[in-house]
């Protein structure tokens, strides 16, 4: 198992380096940082001196190494659009995105898994078909449209919930949280639901498909043949085996939730990293794009690692290296 962890860490390092490379290439070749910092009317001298200051006259590998060194410390320079440090900007916005993503993840899991199990067990009945049709709707509706429709219904027509911003937040150390105020919760509801819909539908369909597969296996047949009660067969045997592959996919989905938050944050003007990223793309603000990219890659890699470890904990076939012999 130790070897396994080492291998995964090595893979993670490769992924991070490739991402860093892409981010670095963005810096180098997309737009001219010197022009964007100095403007069009700078003299040749000014350009040269800035070039030297920024270290742009060094050979390529040196620049890359410096970039990686900086990146590891979280140093990405200044935002082209706002002139402030990128790391500060991201740090400010991170809590908002994280809270939103976690809330959406919880909703997707808590609603998706039971509904998926239900749809598998009651296959063919009306309730199950209804659930499946709704889930199909869930993956056919783009996230932004869900957000808009929810705003239309709950903010414009019913006037129950607010439609933009985070509401009242409480600052704890370096973290700002909206979870400690009622207003914060009210602002969280619509965006979290919007963000969760796609993931929920996906998880639901995945759980159902897996469960149907498991229900056809020989060990479930054998369990029934031994006279085990339905509860034990479905929830003891079938469910546990269903959840094992679901863990991996769900883990990966959670990682992509943070990226999908880009859209939700835009629709609801939620002050998170995603909103920042969109503005960066619209403005071609390369330092912010690069920093966001690296951070997302890091989050993904960490989530993947955690999921792999979880897999180890749940599936005994992976744990023990040597199957015993004997007849």
């Amino acid at each position: 198992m130790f070897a396994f962890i080492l291998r995964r860490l090595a893979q993670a390092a490769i992924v991070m380096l490739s991402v860093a490379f892409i981010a670095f290439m963005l810096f180098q070749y997309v737009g001219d940082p010197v022009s964007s910092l100095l403007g069009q009317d700078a003299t040749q001298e000014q350009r040269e001196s800035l070039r030297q200051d920024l270290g742009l006259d060094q050979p390529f590998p040196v620049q890359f190494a410096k970039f990686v060194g900086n990146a590891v410390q979280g140093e990405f320079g200044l935002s082209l659009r706002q002139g402030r440090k990128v790391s500060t900007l991201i740090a400010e916005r991170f809590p908002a995105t994280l809270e939103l993503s976690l809330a959406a993840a919880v909703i997707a899991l808590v609603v998706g898994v039971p509904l998926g199990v239900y749809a598998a067990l009651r296959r063919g009945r009306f309730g199950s078909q209804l659930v499946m049709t709704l889930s199909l709707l869930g993956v056919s509706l783009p996230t932004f449209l869900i957000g808009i429709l929810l705003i239309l219904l709950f903010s414009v027509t019913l006037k129950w919930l607010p439609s933009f911003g985070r509401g009242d937040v409480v600052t704890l150390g370096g973290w700002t949280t909206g979870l400690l105020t009622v207003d914060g919760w009210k602002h969280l509801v619509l965006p979290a639901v919007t963000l969760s819909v796609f993931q929920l539908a996906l998880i639901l369909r995945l759980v159902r498909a897996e469960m149907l597969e498991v229900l056809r296996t020989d060990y479930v047949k054998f369990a029934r043949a031994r006279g085990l009660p339905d509860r034990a067969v479905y929830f003891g045997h079938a469910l546990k085996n269903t959840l094992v592959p679901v863990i991996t996919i769900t883990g990966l989905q959670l990682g992509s939730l943070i990226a999908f938050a880009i859209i939700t944050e835009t629709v609801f003007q939620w002050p998170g990293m995603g909103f920042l990223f969109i503005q960066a793309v619209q403005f071609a603000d390369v330092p912010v794009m690069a920093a966001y990219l690296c951070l997302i890659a890091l989050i993904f890699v960490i989530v993947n690692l955690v999921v792999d470890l979880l897999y180890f904990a749940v599936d005994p076939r992976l744990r023990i290296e040597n199957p015993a012999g004997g007849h």
Partner: protein
Amino acid sequence: MTPAPSVTSTAAPSAIARFLDSDIWFSFKSSPMAIVAAVIAALCLFCSLFAPWVSPHNPFDLASLNLSDARLPPAWLEGGSSKYLLGTDDQGRDLLSALFYGARISLLVGLASVAVSLVVGVGLGLLSGFVGGKTDAFIMRVCDVMLSFPSILVALLIDGVGRAIFPQADERLAFGVLIVAISLSGWVQYARTVRGSTLVERNKEYVQAARVVGVAPLRIMFKHVLPNVMGPVLVLATIQVAAAILTEATLSFLGVGVPPTSPSLGTLIRVGNDFLFSGEWWITVFPGLMLVLIALSVNLLGDWLRDALNPRLR
């Protein structure tokens, strides 16, 4: 003594007759959802492709726009007129026509992206599975890295980079970048699926026989292996069309998709978003509905196709 068999001439049934007798057609006929979905998809496709002929107005002919007709509600509400069945937007454009033209753009971008994804993905998958070795390992690593990024992010990145590199791009280039962005975020699925199937087929006897006889590898790949792996690819492609259309809509909504001169459904929704709070909901809702209809019917077809092609569920 057995009687002599009667001589009747029976020609082999034609391809059409075989199709009509096949399991696929049967499961299609007996699935009302599939039929409804196919009809809706066909309708949308028709209206979109023939938008200039089907639409009552041309919403992009600036000369025909009448600003005094702006922000009219749909015909069945108070203040609406039968001239503009679904109302107008802030520029006086007929929403129904804008829907058809917009759907056309959305569909074209979606289909083009999937076509590119398909070619790239299937090609790389075939190569990877057939050749094996270091090529295979490399391509798979690339797939792994790309898979760890959600498609929307990849699309956004490529789009953003494209914009930065070509700030004064003309329309065709902008479309090109968009299509590349969406297709690059989707090819990995094809590659993996095809690679998996290729690996299975590669070890089968008919491939080995062809190799022994000396048939060129490329020919083996395309003529023998490819037809056998197309089934799951077809299902994937159908579902990806819906995903591509939604991705394009999202990008356009965010303002980084199609150029503003050729608005797609996403752009229309974005425009309408500004008028939600002033009560002119139709400018957003109708394009949204059209988008959902298209995506939903394509997804339903993909779902049905997957179940129909899965021999174990029959």
